[in-house]
């Protein structure tokens, strides 16, 4: 039996607007860029809704209608949901319709899509609760499986998450932690009782997410038929194929003219041609399959870049300095009792702000460059620090 487990990350940060040194102390509106640039959050939400969220949601709705057993899982960050409420309520409605089918599972994460676990366990737990409440309030469901920001994971993360009552967690199927094992089984994390670990099959996931339209790739063009043959190949050497990716793969990273929607539209029927195959949600995979082995992950892993560690967010001096200065404010922020300050401080925690400061990107392909709305990582840092200095002033003046 091979089960295909699709999980899509859906997230948009609140990008900081152009914010210079002369704005400090004068303007505490950090997020509403007015120019039609890629810093304009409203503009991005509208654009990606049109190119990705609305059409892909429709494809999935059609597929569920056609194949009542077709399942997928999502995580939607709190900051993303907030932005849909504000800028694109029709997109939020379309996600609600998907969840209402009962074939779509929603996962838990930190509300602001943050690195908080690395800096403050207290803040981490609060944000998970905030997110849980939001999902419950908007969609009427309660997540039981957790995925940390950008699949950041190690033994400590999973222990904390188990204590918080989750039955499963997601991580990247990094070769160096798997050794001779493969990602197509469920695992038991080292030092835990019941929680189960699902690992991303990064080869098959990246075939869709990164290589789909790459003409240099020997398998180009990728068809639903070819892909389902690779799924069949796993039969006998695995139970669940975890295809984890950014939802923006569909229509935004891979544009419509690459044929990505047709691929998705035809994939289920091709996979179902083998009677041993099916699609499962994350929870179904966890409930159905038993752990194959115990997996020890002492060091942090993630799904980012070739290194698959924390270096996309916390490698250079600027990134570490910015994160340290931000989290140093924690106790002052809370003792201010000012909800607007608390909210702004939390919005600054979104991991993307640190990703934009990454200077590895000249060597590591242009993935970072593509996703960076700032002219350079240095501009991202300067903007962030200026905003942080304004926030500090507000704490003093509060």
């Amino acid at each position, binding site marked *: 039996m091979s089960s295909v487990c699709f999980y899509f990350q859906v997230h948009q940060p609140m990008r900081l607007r152009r914010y210079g040194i002369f704005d400090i102390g004068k303007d505490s509106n950090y997020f509403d860029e007015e120019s039609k640039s890629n810093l304009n959050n409203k503009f991005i939400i509208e654009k990606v809704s049109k190119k990705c969220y609305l059409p892909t949601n429709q494809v999935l709705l059609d597929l569920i209608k056609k194949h009542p057993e077709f399942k997928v899982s999502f995580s939607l960050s709190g900051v993303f949901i907030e932005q849909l409420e504000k800028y694109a309520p029709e997109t939020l409605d379309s996600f609600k319709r998907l969840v209402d089918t009962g074939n779509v599972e929603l996962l838990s994460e930190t509300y602001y899509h943050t690195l908080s676990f690395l800096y403050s366990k207290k803040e981490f737990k609060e944000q998970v609760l905030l997110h849980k409440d939001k999902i419950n309030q908007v969609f009427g469901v309660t997540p039981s499986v957790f995925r940390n920001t950008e699949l950041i994971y190690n033994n400590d993360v999973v222990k904390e998450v188990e204590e918080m009552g989750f039955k499963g967690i997601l991580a990247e199927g990094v070769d160096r932690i798997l050794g001779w094992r493969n990602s197509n089984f469920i695992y038991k994390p080292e030092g835990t009782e019941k929680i189960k670990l699902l690992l991303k099959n990064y080869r098959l996931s990246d075939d869709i997410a990164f290589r789909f339209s790459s003409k240099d790739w020997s398998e180009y063009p990728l068809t639903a038929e070819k892909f389902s043959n690779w799924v069949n190949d796993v039969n006998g050497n695995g139970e669940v194929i975890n295809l984890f990716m950014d939802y923006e793969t569909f229509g935004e990273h891979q544009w419509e003219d690459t044929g990505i929607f047709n691929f998705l539209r035809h994939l289920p029927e091709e996979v179902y041609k083998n009677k041993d195959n099916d699609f499962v949600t994350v929870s179904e995979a966890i409930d159905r399959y038993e752990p194959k082995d115990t997996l020890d992950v002492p060091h942090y892993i993630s799904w980012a870049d070739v290194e698959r560690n924390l270096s996309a967010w916390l490698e250079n001096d600027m990134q570490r300095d910015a994160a340290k200065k931000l989290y140093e404010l924690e106790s002052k922020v809370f003792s201010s009792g000012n909800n607007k300050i608390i909210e702004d401080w939390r919005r600054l925690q979104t991991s993307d702000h640190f990703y934009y400061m990454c200077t590895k990107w000249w060597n590591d392909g242009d993935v970072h460059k593509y996703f960076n709305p700032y002219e350079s990582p*240095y501009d991202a840092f*300067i903007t962030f620090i200026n905003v942080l200095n304004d926030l500090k002033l507000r704490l003093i003046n509060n």
Partner: protein
Amino acid sequence: MGSGDERIRVLMFGWEFPPFNSGGLGVACLGLTKAIVGENAEIIFVLPKKIDIKNSPVKLHFADSHLVNYKIIDSLISPYLTEDDFLKKRGNFGDYGMDLIDAVKLYALRAREIAKEENFNIIHAHDWLSFGAGIEAKKISGKPLIVHIHSTEFDRTGGTGINNEIYLLEKQGMEYADAIIAVSNFTKDVIISKYGIPPEKIQVVHNGIENKEETQKDQNKSDFFRIIKTNGGKIVIFVGRITIQKGPDYFLKSAKKVLEFCPNTFFIVAGSGDMQNQIIRQTAQLGISDRVLFSGFLRDEELNSLYKNADLFIMPSVSEPFGLTALEAMQHGTPVIVSKQSGVSEVVNHALKVDFWDTDELTNKIVSVLKNESLSSTLKSNSLNEVKTISWKNAAQKCVEIYKKILGQFKFFLKKKDK
């Protein structure tokens, strides 16, 4: 019979090398010539000079000096010369009755004599003062001409109105040439839009920089630098001619604003030029005379020491075809801010970039570097790595490719003509 791999012999019309240069052009000529010789081409290097030839230092620069031959033409012209400069200089030498354009024409006539005697297969002329020489050499020898544009009249005058006679000489050189090398896309765009040259005739060859051993921050700080540093002061530098092209006035305007955020900062202007008195006056008017220091033109150890002790290098040029000094600063581990109106901004990622006119943004970036050690250290470590990848070897290889391509086309054309 005649093999296709005939050795490349370049008749190059260039400019004085350091330490006799007065700016980036001499440095570029030296770096490029060395590297082209390294690609196994021969160079007959012609330069104008008003000196006694006995003490010519030029050969000292080369290990393979047999590949480089020098021809010196007695002339008063030198890079960055304005008509006024020329007239002053002329007075010193007593060559009355000649203006700059006459001197350029005379230089071209003498170049003709050299071209008659020497054996070469391609001509390479650097900047407009030598284009006349290149054209004459082409006329007399029938060999193809490449003109290399390090700056245009539009850069040098920074939007204050061009000298039409110089413009026409530049244009004539570009039109007469078989190929044009531009030091940046920025310059290529100027050549297309202002001189009406078709884009396919222009190749971009970015300048390089000679590799340099990594140096520690200067241990033996001069008293001046030491006093500033021990008092927690910061040093921001401008290195270049004090001319409208280099944007010294934008440097000053930002300095005034920066001092409101970082009062313990010193700004050093290293260079001289026709705007110097105006800039000094402006400093006084802004009330920041105690914070802005004028060192004059520096070279060698003095300049290195300035780079090493600086916390930040600024190049706010209004119109900068390349901007080698930014690479020099990076080599010394000094963070740099360059204007987007510069060629060097096309080749470096690990520099901060601003529009020259946006002094608020320049201030924003200066203050951010001065106040955040993490920004400064990230820039420093990344730019030290990056500058190592920018070499004259790359530039020379591209030049040699262009020589080969032009020689190939030329042969084909001659054969067709024979038939």
